[in-house]
């Protein structure tokens, strides 16, 4: 199996980059090299982030805010400094628009809950409608199902075309004057589809609906500019973008964050508390109850520094080239069916597929025996599987340290799977 690696200009210097990631040296199953193609589930963490985490705990650890001692001031400066970094990374108009959560799921639930408890004009209730899509991650479905059950609001969604794109043909019937919120994924975690933000945002603005964008699979892989997106809220998660686990982000427009009610109560989210009533701190603190994930925010700041030092445009280009190559090579495998776009056009680096009748669990297991880590299952996007009449998929997903050689290893591995179950 020859790898036409020479023919792929524009890739990153993965040899250098891979040195930053200790885990990529891991050997599995009697010495097989790890081929980590499960980046859509979680990314690996570079030395630069791990060092910052250790330094935080070894030098500066303290609870943030309200402290007058040195450690508390250092920890606060680091934590709030991470907010500045994230704000710059997504081109937020104000640092106060960046809320730290524990993961993207909390960010999404936070918006759903704010809207459920909001006053007019934001309040979601039985007269109103919520719009999502059939390609959402469960974390952008279940919060809206819960909100719909609890408020009586109607939940609607965009369906999918056969080639893994949103079917926007009936956009005017789906997003209507009753729509209060449209929440959709920027890049699908199961199919890699990049969605047409502008068309949806335009229609939402027409009817005065708020827009929440789930950028969990976008923030790690491309330039994310919340102003250019023109959304009202953008959610993403640290562990998919070289950051630690336990940290997520919700960006929201300042006026909205001022108007909307808090979600979790306690700790630092208050202005003043008496037994009878409390008032709340201004955003972002209003939405950060309790001791925040301090070290994790600081780690995310370091991750953002790391990604920026390489360049998000360069990372996007690298992944695009690799995806183009992978899509082509995968289609050479007999009986392999890609679920989602079959070209690299408007798609990210997560590629789902089925392989004949072989169950994805078996595909994944036999790949694992060769050191190749892919994810199998419904990828927390079961409606997509239902839509395409399959129980599950195998998903390979790439990142800045992925190489054409790893694509080749995957293709070889799949040949082996076919022979094994053939």
């Amino acid at each position: 199996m020859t790898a036409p690696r020479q023919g792929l200009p524009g890739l990153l210097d993965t040899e250098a980059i891979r040195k930053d990631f200790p885990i990529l040296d891991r050997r599995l199953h009697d010495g097989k090299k790890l081929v980590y193609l499960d980046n859509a589930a979680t990314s690996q963490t570079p030395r630069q982030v791990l060092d910052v985490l250790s330094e935080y705990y070894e030098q500066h650890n303290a609870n943030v805010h309200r402290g007058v001692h040195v450690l508390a001031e250092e920890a606060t400066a680091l934590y709030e400094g991470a907010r500045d970094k994230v704000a710059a990374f997504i081109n937020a108009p104000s640092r106060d628009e960046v809320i730290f959560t524990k993961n993207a799921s909390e960010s999404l639930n936070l918006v759903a809950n704010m809207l459920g408890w909001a006053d007019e004009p934001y309040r979601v209730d039985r007269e109103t409608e919520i719009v999502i899509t059939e390609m959402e991650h469960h974390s952008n479905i279940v919060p809206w199902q819960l909100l719909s059950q609890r408020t009586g609001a109607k939940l609607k969604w965009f369906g999918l075309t056969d080639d893994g794109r949103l079917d926007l043909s009936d956009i005017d019937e789906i997003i209507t004057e009753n729509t209060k919120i449209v929440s959709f994924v920027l890049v699908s975690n199961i199919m890699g589809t990049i969605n047409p933000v502008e068309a949806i945002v335009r229609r939402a603005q027409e009817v005065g609906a708020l827009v929440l964008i789930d950028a969990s699979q976008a923030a790690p892989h491309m330039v994310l500019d919340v102003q250019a997106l023109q959304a009202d809220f953008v959610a993403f998660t640290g562990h998919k973008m070289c950051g630690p686990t336990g940290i997520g982000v919700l960006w929201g427009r300042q006026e909205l964050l001022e108007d909307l009610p808090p979600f979790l109560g306690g700790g630092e989210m208050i202005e003043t508390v008496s037994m009878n009533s409390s008032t709340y701190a201004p955003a972002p603190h209003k939405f950060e109850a309790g001791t925040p994930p301090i070290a994790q925010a600081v780690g995310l700041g370091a991750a953002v520094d790391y990604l920026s030092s390489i360049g998000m445009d360069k990372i996007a280009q690298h992944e695009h080239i690799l995806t183009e190559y992978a899509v082509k090579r995968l289609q050479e495998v007999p009986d392999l069916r890609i679920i989602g776009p079959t070209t690299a056009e408007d798609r990210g680096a997560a590629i789902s597929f089925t392989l004949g009748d072989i169950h994805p669990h078996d595909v994944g297991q036999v790949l694992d025996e060769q050191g190749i880590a892919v994810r199998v299952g419904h990828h927390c996007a079961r409606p997509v599987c239902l839509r395409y009449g399959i129980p599950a998929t195998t998903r390979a997903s790439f990142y800045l340290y992925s190489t054409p050689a790893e694509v080749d290893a995957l293709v070889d591995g799949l040949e082996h799977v076919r022979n094994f179950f053939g």
Partner: protein
Amino acid sequence: MYQDVILDHYKHPHGRGLRDGDAEVHHVNPTCGDEITLRVKYDGLRIADVSYEGQGCSISQASASVLNELLVGKELSEARKIQSVFLELMQSKGQIEPDDAMEEVLEDAVAFAGVSKYPARVKCALLSWMAWKDATAQALGDGADESDDADEAVRKTA
């Protein structure tokens, strides 16, 4: 983990297909979307048939086939013993090396010993067994369901 016995059962399943039964259940493994519809037919306390239809990985398919082969024709008490031994094996995290006594009880099912090392796959192997247990409880009444161990076990691997 892919013993030839397992691959054989996967490629040539025993007793697959839905036939007449006293009770039917539908079980899903939420982790991977494996599904099984399973019917039991009792003749008194003797298992007259276990028929099933489903989709899933080789492990879950082969396990259903082995179950059919092992349990059909057995008395319920005997089947329960088999099930509990199989459960013990699957919970062993690769620590049990099946001996002759175990092989006598489990026959082809001892081939699943290797699967017990893979927590994510134990659920696949147990899917049809849980379905059988559940269907049996329905067919014979809850009184026949004397223990919750199996459910506990599945929970533990969740």
